[in-house]
């Protein structure tokens, strides 16, 4: 138990004003879909790690402070510590802040600077790897009876026109962690260049009333889609540029309008914001309902914070500390490594766990059989991720328009190729089929759009496409980009289920199962479990 809780085990909960390392216990069910961490024999988990004095303090403070400790409420003024641990169903997530503790009082990432009471931190919670798990959303609904600003009508409900007191009106957020994202239609510009879309869009099905109504759909110059929030951490990797070209689009990388440098294209699901300033302005106007504009000082402070935060799983329930016995899991390696390196010609992706491929007998003897087996499984999972090849077919961004061919044999690291992080060194817009038929699962609670290509047909779907979310096409205006979604971050996965942009995988096994049925990979049951265990350690 001591080993599992790692460096945070002796510290109390990070109540407001606390500085340093904190450990917060897991919720009842793990985000990876696994049972919660078992308590110590004869003692509840919370009692086992929380000093009595802290419990007494907790019982005596105000009602608002008795809200779940994991939750960072807008404007609460806690100090963000240099190292912060949160337990989850798979172990412990650690978040590091380079430069030491930071007061959040008055900080624009943490203050409700918009009109709806939310702050950036509302949807980018430290306990959830700076994203937001559906489990946390459900806790907030229960804790506040739906009155948390998180459930703001603008995007925290299935559609603002629905009765907001009704839990069913927030079902997409509560069940799958999906926010409504309103994109302009038709697309008029991309990276400052004028765009005339080469496709039309029609609403086939609208279960939530937004896309067929007069205010939020194409009739009002909008398209409403539903997506998971992306983690705001490990940002230097998401901003890193490895090569000067975007081979998926067939151009040199676009230039940042602020500093003139090439843009990575890996920030947002549909690549609509190429730098953090544009992303912040987009988020402030839409999610925070900020009436004015962010000031340059606010933008600078948010950027400063976001580029100093690193998060990753630090301790595994199954394996113990992820930086033990030669392994280098956890966020410190992320913080200390150079971003943007291609794993195939440098440090192999997930080689952080290579030392666990062969654990010396003397070291193995110090581990329980279960811990040894789990570590070996994590190491095998990394190998499977890199080396198990399969035929990738009909996937725009891979099989078209670039010349890899359709099909092409490769492995997970074909796209998840950046050392330490597993995102794409090139801009990562790829159509896995997660949002588009026939590959997408049949989600009846999502809108369905009919896309008709006006010029060349889509290279794989043809002229008419049925999709829940056109993805990158809503930014580029190109039919060939329908269904492309920027690759997801892979760190801190255990803290932020469900997965994929539309939350289709409720747990880590769901990710593997989606790939298996999409590409008929032929993973063995052992390989599937090894992949799940490896991803739980990221």
């Amino acid at each position, binding site marked *: 138990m001591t080993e599992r809780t790692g460096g945070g085990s002796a510290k109390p909960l990070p109540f407001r004003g606390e500085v340093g390392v904190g450990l917060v216990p897991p919720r009842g069910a793990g985000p990876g879909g696994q049972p919660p961490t078992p308590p110590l024999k004869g003692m509840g988990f919370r009692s086992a790690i929380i000093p009595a004095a802290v419990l007494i303090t907790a019982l005596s403070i105000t009602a608002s402070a008795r809200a779940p400790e994991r939750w960072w409420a807008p404007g609460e003024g806690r100090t963000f510590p240099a190292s912060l641990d949160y337990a989850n169903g798979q172990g412990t997530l650690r978040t590091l802040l380079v430069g030491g503790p930071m007061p959040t009082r008055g900080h624009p990432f943490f203050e409700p600077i918009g009109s709806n009471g939310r702050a950036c931190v509302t949807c980018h919670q430290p306990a959830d790897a700076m994203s937001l798990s559906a489990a946390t959303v459900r806790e907030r609904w229960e804790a506040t009876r739906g009155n948390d600003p998180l459930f703001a009508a603008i995007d925290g409900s299935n559609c603002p026109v629905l009765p907001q007191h009704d839990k069913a009106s927030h079902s997409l957020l509560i069940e799958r962690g999906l926010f409504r994202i309103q994109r302009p239609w038709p697309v008029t510009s991309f990276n400052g260049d004028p765009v005339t879309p080469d496709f039309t869009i029609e609403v086939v099905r609208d279960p939530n009333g937004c896309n067929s109504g007069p205010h939020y759909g194409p009739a009002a110059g909008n398209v409403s889609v539903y997506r998971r929030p992306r983690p705001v951490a490990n940002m230097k990797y998401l901003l890193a540029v*490895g090569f*000067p070209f975007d081979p998926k689009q067939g*151009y040199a990388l676009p230039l940042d309008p602020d500093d003139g440098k090439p843009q990575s294209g890996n920030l947002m699901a549909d690549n609509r914001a190429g730098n953090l300033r544009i992303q912040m302005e987009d988020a402030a106007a839409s999610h925070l309902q900020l009436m004015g504009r962010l000031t340059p000082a606010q933008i600078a402070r948010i950027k400063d914070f976001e580029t100093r935060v690193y998060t990753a799983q630090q301790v595994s329930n199954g394996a113990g500390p992820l930086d033990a016995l030669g392994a280098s899991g956890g966020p410190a390696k992320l913080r200390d490594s150079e971003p943007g390196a*291609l794993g195939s010609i440098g440090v192999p992706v997930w080689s952080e766990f290579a030392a666990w491929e062969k654990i010396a007998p003397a070291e193995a003897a110090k581990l329980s059989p279960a811990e040894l087996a789990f570590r070996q499984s994590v190491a095998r999972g990394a190998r499977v991720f890199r080396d198990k090849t399969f035929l990738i077919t009909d996937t725009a961004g891979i099989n078209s328009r670039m*010349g890899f061919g359709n099909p092409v*044999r490769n492995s997970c690291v074909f796209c998840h190729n950046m050392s330490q992080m597993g995102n794409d060194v090139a801009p990562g817009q790829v159509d896995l089929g997660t949002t588009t038929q026939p590959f997408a699962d049949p989600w009846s609670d999502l809108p369905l759009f009919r896309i008709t290509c006006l010029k060349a047909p889509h290279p794989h779907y043809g002229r008419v496409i049925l999709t829940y979310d056109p993805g990158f096409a809503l930014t580029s205006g190109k039919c060939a980009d329908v269904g492309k979604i920027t690759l997801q971050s892979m760190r801190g996965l255990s803290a932020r289920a469900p997965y994929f942009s539309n939350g289709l995988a409720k747990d880590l096994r769901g990710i593997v199962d989606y790939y298996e049925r999409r590409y008929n990979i032929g993973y063995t049951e052992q390989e599937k479990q090894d992949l799940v265990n490896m991803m739980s350690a990221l």
Partner: protein
Amino acid sequence: MRKALTLLALAAPLSAQAAETGDLVRFIACPVYRDADSGKKSGCWLASDPATGGRYDVSQSPYKPDWNFAVLVEGRLAAASPASCGAAVLEPVRTSRLAAPCVRHMLPAEGFPGRKYVLPRRNINPLSVARPLPPGPYAERVFTTWFEFDRDFLVYQYDDYQIDNAVTWIRGAKPAKLVVTGFAATTPETVSAQQIAERPEVAQERAESIAQTLRRLLPGMTVETKWEVGAKPSSDPDADGIPGQAQRRAEIRAVF
């Protein structure tokens, strides 16, 4: 000498039945994928010339087929053993995806190993690798990029390499402007009993595509565009001696 040899190669007649090493073959066919597995990107692409029935290994093309669509195959018969994929090897070779649909077909490896992937020679370095500027003196110079049939898409590990080299030279040479000319092979030709020709507008699309890339890589540089149809083959050796490839191009002229 190299230029003369290239011109000689480009002047070689098209042959319906390639029998000799170095002969050019050109045909349209539905591609077949052989699932040979020697690791990443190791599968084989095969295509049969409908005029002869001869099957060729076309795997070495910088832009590879899509098993759902016909391909225009252009290549030269190589002396290499057919042992990798089970067919006569075309090298160099190009396989342009056409619009005509095909029934997708995959063969098992059948004992053929395919080819273990190696980085192509036209492969750019990461940005972290310094690019020394070439020494002067500098004078007007033309760099060429190459395209798939009727496409304007920048070819990975081919065009990016050419442009990366061009941009490095241009950064050192500091010309007054760049003139990008797109070419399209619009003169109809009969291949495998089908008449094919590139769209005239692809010439402009190629020029604009390359110009857009140059404006991003060389901010502030004046980049003008032109386009020509009825393209004649370039003698540039980076077309690898394939006449069709030598027509489908865009030229970047550095003007002082």
